[in-house]
């Protein structure tokens, strides 16, 4: 099995169970890098189908206050890209792992090197919010052959032309539920369902929805229309409330969401 196939398998598996895949996000280095391994295992035990690991960046312009804070606390502790790669390489998990980070960290290491090193560490896909399709398209197929899906984005403002283009992408479509940044919101935007339906007319890739999904009820609602539900800020906020019990909090949090799907 190639690692990129495993993204598809994860979605196939949840679809066979007639539910959306659950994709939690954590920031590597929050509360500290030593917690990455127990946290990832806790997420897997809680029922995550895929896991996003954020590599902290100094200028996370797609993130709201919670994930900004997690990134800056990780960086204050001196977390380095190589340390994250090494920590991920030591993980023994069955679910596909994805990196979420910003383009400058990728570019600085060398785009090809970053992709190869991520694959070596056992990563299946990269989610780079500030690397839009026009800039990343020429790496799509090469990266896929190297075992890395460069996850394409769709937004409420996306044109039909863009949705046609990303049909040639790999992994899944990361759908941004609202115009805005990551963060907790009180309800699922009414535009999510028509947006997902619109994207489906253009691509057969699985569609996962993120940005603002915080509660089991919101996860359930989103899971009714999408193939995957991404939860980041609400989980990281729960860890911030009890950093001393991070793995236990993470497992409970993910299990509650999973039961709602």
């Amino acid at each position, binding site marked *: 099995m190639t690692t990129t196939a495993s993204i598809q398998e994860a979605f196939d598996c949840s679809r066979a169970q007639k539910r959306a895949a659950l994709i939690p996000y954590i920031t590597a280095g929050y509360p500290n890098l030593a917690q990455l391994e127990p946290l990832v295992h806790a997420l897997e035990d809680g029922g995550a189908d895929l896991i996003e690991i954020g590599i902290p*960046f*100094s*200028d*996370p*312009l*797609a993130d*709201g*206050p919670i994930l*900004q804070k997690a990134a*800056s606390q990780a*960086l204050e502790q001196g977390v*380095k*890209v190589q340390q994250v790669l090494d920590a991920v390489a030591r993980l023994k998990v069955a679910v596909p792992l994805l990196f979420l980070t910003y*383009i*400058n*960290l*990728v*570019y*600085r*290491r060398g785009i090809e090197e970053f992709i190869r090193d991520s694959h070596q560490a056992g990563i299946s896909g990269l989610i780079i*919010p*500030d*690397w*839009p*399709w*026009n*800039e990343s398209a020429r790496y799509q197929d090469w990266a896929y052959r190297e075992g890395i899906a460069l996850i394409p*984005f*769709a*937004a*409420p*403002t*996306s*044109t039909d032309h*863009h949705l046609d283009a990303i049909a040639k992408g790999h992994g899944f479509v990361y759908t*941004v539920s609202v*115009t*805005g*940044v990551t963060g907790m919101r009180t309800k699922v935007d009414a535009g999510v369902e028509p947006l997902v339906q619109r994207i489906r007319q253009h691509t057969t890739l699985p569609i996962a929805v993120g940005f603002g999904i915080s509660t089991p009820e919101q996860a359930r609602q989103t899971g009714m229309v999408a193939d995957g539900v991404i939860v980041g800020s609400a989980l990281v906020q729960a860890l911030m409330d009890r950093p001393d019990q991070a793995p236990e909090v993470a497992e409970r949090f993910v299990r509650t969401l999973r039961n709602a799907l």
Partner: protein
Amino acid sequence: MERVKAMPDNAGRFGPFGGQYVPETLIPALNELTSAYVQAKADTSFQREWMDLLKDYVGRPTPLRQAYRVTKELGFPVYLKREDLNHTGAHKINNTMGQVLLASRMGKTRIIAETGAGQHGVATATAAALFGLKAEVYMGAEDVKRQALNVYRMRLLGAQVHAVNAGTSTLKDTTNEAIRDWVTNVRDTFYVIGSVVGPHPYPMMVRDFQSVIGREARGQFRRLTGGFPTHIVAPVGGGSNSMGIFYPFRQDPVALIGVEAAGKGIDTGHHAATITKAERGILHGSLSYLLQDEDGQVQPAHSISAGLDYPGVGPEHAYFHHIGRAQYVSITDDEALRAFHHLAEWEGIIPALESAHAVAWVIKNCDALREQKARVLINLSGRGDKDVDAVLEYEGGLQ
């Protein structure tokens, strides 16, 4: 001399630099902006309206005159392009008038901007007031405290000022916050970027609006002397005043000198000499040079001049450096301060600390310039009233 090609290309590239590195949510807005700008650029009624505003509201053309006492002190002719005489006291307003006019033409109802010490914020608030549009300005929390007068100026002009506490609370974090606002309110909001930075089409659009400086200067200098200057010297932070004066001279036999801030010294790590370091990186939507660590984490910049205190630089400057069309040098805080005093005493002009960097480079290199029989044109990008408090404090208060 190698001919500089028309840039950027359709993807917003200046050679390897530039591009559009922003979230997908913003891509359609950038495409809308690009086509609105391209249409406006070709539309004589837009151009006439903008030129009328520059003439009757901003006070252009700004004078270009030989600085006779500087000339006498240094031993070769030195000329000043007086952007400090614009309404609001700096070149910033050339750009904000253009962008806000475009925003109003596009039917956008809300204007946002980032600002460091407040110059671009004041220039944006001014243009927004003139057009009856609501402006919201993001400014670092520390600067909101330090630059209380500029905050009050923006409020007088009807703008709302948001203090940014995120990250290091400097201009780069303020820019992040403005981008976050834009990505959230993209449908009705126009983001007025203050320099030749950001995703395409901003570096091109801001360059075009600021090129009025160089177009005027080219005509004025030829009328005055019958020829070209040998050197044009301008300060570079993000790079809008320097690109504005360089660009119309790019095909001419003129040395273009961009002066960055060396802060406390390049070796101290406390500087803003992005092109001098020349490490490629991506920040705020474009690939250019960037102050960063070995992982690519962006490093805070330092300069006594708030307008130069930015860890990135416009992608077209990176391109000019890459192909050798412009030369980039750096000047320390202390050198800039001495030039600040010299220009005040020699010419009766208190320059902005940004502009003082350009003056300082000319003074520092006066022997070589005299030998070359140089005729030097300095872009005096802004007036120094805003810096008087900071200089006084730096020098230990009134004696």
